[in-house]
């Protein structure tokens, strides 16, 4: 390991600009002569639009234009496309209702876009929007999934019973047969609470149109600018790609919510072309709450069949997943291919059957949020296993160990499509138990008891699937995109290097990690390497960053391009050194004829590539610039063990996370410091889901948790000390051996927290607690558990 190569905790390259206020986020960008857009949003959850009168608004001071859905329709603007098609059990394609960027005739959730005002200033645009007179005829909203399925009111005419699809996976008969043999069946009802991502940077978009070249530019807060260019260019605005540039500059966090193609991106781009002036839109935080896609929102019944020794025989799961009012870009795949396929977890359950109904409601669209499907699967499974242990009298650890996929079983084919390549679940558990000082728990619990507090210990041994791939497989499952990544490595004549990656960094530190890969492979200092991302005008192509894919897919693409660079550089060196190519080795930035002191520095070879005076031009092209597109052979499978220790004050219901231990197997670690930060972030969000966060609508479909005060996100004082470690098994199908680390924290932690609470309160009689386990909820659970016990 060199000081900056693989495995070094190199300080982040991007830090300096963020620390000094020089980061450049979308809202920091100003275009000459720019105008400001304000979106008028629906105050109703469900209503017909009977009229829209924009005359007064259009005449208001500073207003440049007002547009409605009718204007976009007349201009041929298409609907926002969905990037994944799921088929129902019966083979029918999912209901895929239109999603116009501005509502046409009907609004379907509070916050739905109705009209846009473009004005000289933001204030003028906002003031004018209040002058738009919209006639609404309110319709009864459907908010919870049960009443949506009853179909009293239809969100979309084309979706009977508000059903998007009714999908399944696994062999139902085989699962039923397994249950018939069971010595014990444990059942559990689980709600995975709806979350609002709330990246600290609100979404923003600037549309710009160059009258000289006819080229559009969209600056946007996106995790995947090329995907936005493809979706918006091809489906919504019909702008060919060579006339559309999408730039996603510094982006202030995404967590999934900035993957999707949003209406505002299309609106500002289209309006910029129409008005021949740049149009800028930045969400207010209150708009983020009602227009950024939400996450999770599953309601599930699950049953686990066991033999007399506590070995899992079968699992049956039935889930209702809320899609919200429209299908967001990747929404359909989240409760199917990113959820049900993970239901084997780390266990050898031979038969699994899962059915999923995806349902439209009059709420904000739901799509992937950090973890996407995998946290839902993990939460369900780990809560179920915990309950099974309590019902059968097995120890929490013992029941897991009995059912772990053994180390010699890899590659392991699950009954729900995935094939795990590597892992060592027992070792991960051991390491976590050591770090969590599990041996001393009984003592700590007794000590807490003396103080009138209840202590609990909760486990979660989880697996997830990252770097979703290969394209051929995801295509057969309904993806309307490939899931490869591209990289271009450009060696400049003096030996410095620019890497163009299709991944996007919005907090992940790619500029550092990727530079470490280059530094390690070419033996050049990191400061000679620049990583460029987030601009379709510079980068050939890319699928962006989500699903913890950047290193496993994007990093591997860089490694392939680097391999090609090295191969060619060796050819050049061999030619100059008059040696055989096979004798040239690259070490510490020197191309050396093996066993001799004849060598050329990396920069000398680079220069020779661009000043090819003595090249054999028939066999060797000038230049040193290579591109690779990498399509992985399989998902990667990070996993791990999280152990949470809580202390509960039974008098107030207050839950304190007194210790949190995470040991994650993320494959090879390139930069331990960055991995630790990613795990911390994920765990904070997971603890947020478990203890604090919940999106609540009232019966009219108004969002009650519509501000940072009402929607409780973790703050410094809510977050415990972490003990974070890694236990590495290498991914077997990428050269780096990496698996991905961005989501593990959010996936592994929620069940550990809730299992700890249930553990603390089991003796009191509490059997279940739903997320978020607020003090009030915990206190009430204690009271209601005590009441019948007192009565007995």
């Amino acid at each position, binding site marked *: 390991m060199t000081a900056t190569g693989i495995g070094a905790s190199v300080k982040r390259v991007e830090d300096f600009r963020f620390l000094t206020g020089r*980061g450049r986020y979308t809202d920091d960008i100003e275009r000459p002569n720019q105008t400001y857009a304000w979106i008028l949003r629906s105050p109703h959850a469900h209503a017909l639009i009977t009229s829209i009168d924009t005359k007064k608004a*259009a005449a208001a001071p500073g207003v440049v234009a007002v547009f409605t859905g009718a204007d976009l329709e007349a201009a041929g603007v298409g609907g926002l496309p969905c990037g994944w098609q799921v088929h129902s059990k019966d083979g029918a394609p999912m209901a895929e209702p239109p999603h116009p960027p501005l509502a046409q005739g009907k609004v379907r959730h509070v916050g739905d876009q109705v009209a846009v005002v473009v004005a000289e200033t933001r204030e003028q645009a906002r003031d004018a929007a209040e002058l738009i007179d919209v006639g609404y005829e309110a319709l009864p909203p459907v908010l919870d999934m049960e009443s949506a399925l009853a179909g009293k009111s239809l969100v979309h005419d084309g979706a009977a019973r508000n059903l998007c699809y009714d999908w399944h996976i696994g062999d139902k008969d085989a699962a039923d047969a397994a249950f018939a043999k069971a010595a014990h069946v444990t059942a559990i009802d689980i709600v995975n609470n709806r979350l609002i991502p709330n990246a600290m940077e609100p979404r923003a978009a600037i549309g710009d149109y160059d009258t000289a070249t006819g080229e559009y530019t969209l600056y946007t807060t996106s995790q995947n600018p090329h995907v936005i260019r493809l979706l918006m260019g091809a489906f919504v605005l019909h702008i060919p790609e060579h006339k559309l540039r999408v730039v996603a500059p510094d982006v202030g966090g995404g967590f999934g919510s900035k993957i999707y193609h949003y209406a505002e991106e299309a609106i500002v781009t289209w309006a910029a072309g129409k008005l021949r002036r740049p149009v800028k839109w930045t969400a207010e935080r209150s708009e983020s709450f009602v227009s950024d896609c939400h996450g999770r929102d599953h309601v599930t019944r699950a049953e686990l069949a066991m033999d007399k020794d506590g070995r899992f025989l079968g699992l049956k799961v039935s889930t209702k997943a809320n899609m919200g009012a429209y299908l967001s870009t990747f929404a359909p795949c989240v409760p199917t291919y990113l959820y049900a396929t993970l239901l084997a977890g780390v266990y050898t359950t031979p038969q699994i059957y899962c059915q999923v109904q995806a349902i439209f409601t009059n709420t904000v669209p739901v799509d992937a949020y950090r973890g996407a499907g995998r946290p839902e699967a993990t939460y369900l499974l780990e809560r179920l296993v915990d309950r099974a242990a309590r019902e059968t009298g097995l120890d929490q650890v013992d029941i897991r160990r009995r059912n772990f996929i053994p180390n010699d079983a890899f590659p392991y084919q699950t009954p729900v499509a995935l094939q795990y390549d590597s892992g060592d679940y027992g070792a991960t558990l051991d390491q976590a138990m050591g770090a969590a000082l599990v041996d001393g728990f009984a003592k700590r619990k007794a000590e807490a008891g003396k103080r009138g507090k209840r202590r609990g210990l909760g486990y979660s041994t989880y697996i997830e699937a990252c770097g979703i791939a290969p394209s051929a497989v995801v295509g057969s499952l309904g993806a309307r995109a490939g899931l490869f990544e591209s990289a271009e490595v450009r060696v400049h004549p003096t030996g410095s290097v620019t890497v163009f990656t299709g991944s996007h960094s919005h907090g992940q530190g790619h500029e550092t990690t990727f530079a470490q890969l280059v530094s390690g492979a070419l033996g050049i200092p990191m400061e000679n390497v620049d990583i460029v991302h987030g601009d379709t005008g510079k980068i050939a192509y890319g699928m962006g960053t989500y699903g913890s894919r950047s290193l496993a897919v994007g990093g591997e693409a860089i490694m392939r391009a680097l391999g090609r660079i090295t191969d060619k550089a060796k050819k050049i060196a061999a030619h100059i050194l008059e040696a055989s190519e096979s004798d040239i080795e690259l070490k510490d930035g020197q191309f050396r004829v093996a066993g001799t002191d004849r060598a050329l520095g990396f920069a000398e070879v680079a220069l020779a590539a661009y000043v090819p005076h003595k090249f054999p031009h028939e066999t060797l092209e000038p230049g040193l610039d290579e591109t690779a597109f990498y399509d992985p052979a399989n998902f990667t499978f990070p996993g791990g063990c999280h152990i949470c220790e809580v202390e509960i004050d039974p008098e107030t219901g207050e839950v304190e996370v007194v210790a949190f231990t995470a040991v994650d197997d993320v494959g090879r670690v390139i930069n331990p410091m960055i991995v630790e930060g990613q795990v911390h972030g994920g765990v904070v969000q997971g603890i947020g889901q478990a203890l604090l966060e919940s999106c609540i609508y009232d019966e009219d479909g108004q969002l009650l948790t519509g501000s940072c005060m009402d929607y409780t996100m973790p703050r410094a004082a809510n*977050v415990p000390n972490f003990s974070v470690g890694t236990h590495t098994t290498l991914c077997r199908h990428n050269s780096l051996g990496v698996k991905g680390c961005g989501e593990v924290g959010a996936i592994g932690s929620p069940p550990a927290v809730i299992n700890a609470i249930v553990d603390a309160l089991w003796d009191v009689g509490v059997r279940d607690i739903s997320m978020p386990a607020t003090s009030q909820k915990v206190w009430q659970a204690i009271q209601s558990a005590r009441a019948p016990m007192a009565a007995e």
Partner: protein
Amino acid sequence: MPGFIPEAAAQAADARPAPLDLVLRVNGTEHRLTLDPRTTLLDALREHLHLTGSKKGCGLGQCGACTVRMDGKGVKSCLSLAALVEGREITTIEGLAQGDQLHPLQAAFIERDAFQCGYCTSGQIMAGVACIAEGHAGSPQEIRDWMSGNLCRCGAYDHIVAAIQDAAGATGPARGG
């Protein structure tokens, strides 16, 4: 095309409240500005002085991304009207380092990896500097409580607390707790 009124821009000035002339003292420099009296300090900094380091996370005083120092105290600039802070000494993230010499808390943020996407960072640092200056960095718990006005959705809290503690030169365990 309904609503398209290209001439409307000309009328813009008419309906605004009478603009106000004022002088803002930011990072040691005086700036003469003519502003709509409703302009917040944050908008004045970002949109009129082009100091975009201070961020708008909520505009409602709920996230702390806009924190600056005013006469040495940490304040949320989205809650202050520019017109009301004339004559005060305002320091933003852009004015914290001395040339290339980072402020000790900026340096500690690098050392502790106290951020990821960077969006909350300016506010965290300005609030952290105030936390230290105003004497609230005595213990990790005190730092955590004081810093709880600043959201970090990337969840870098543990490292932020550690960085503030380092910069405060506090003794005791390095990690927050």
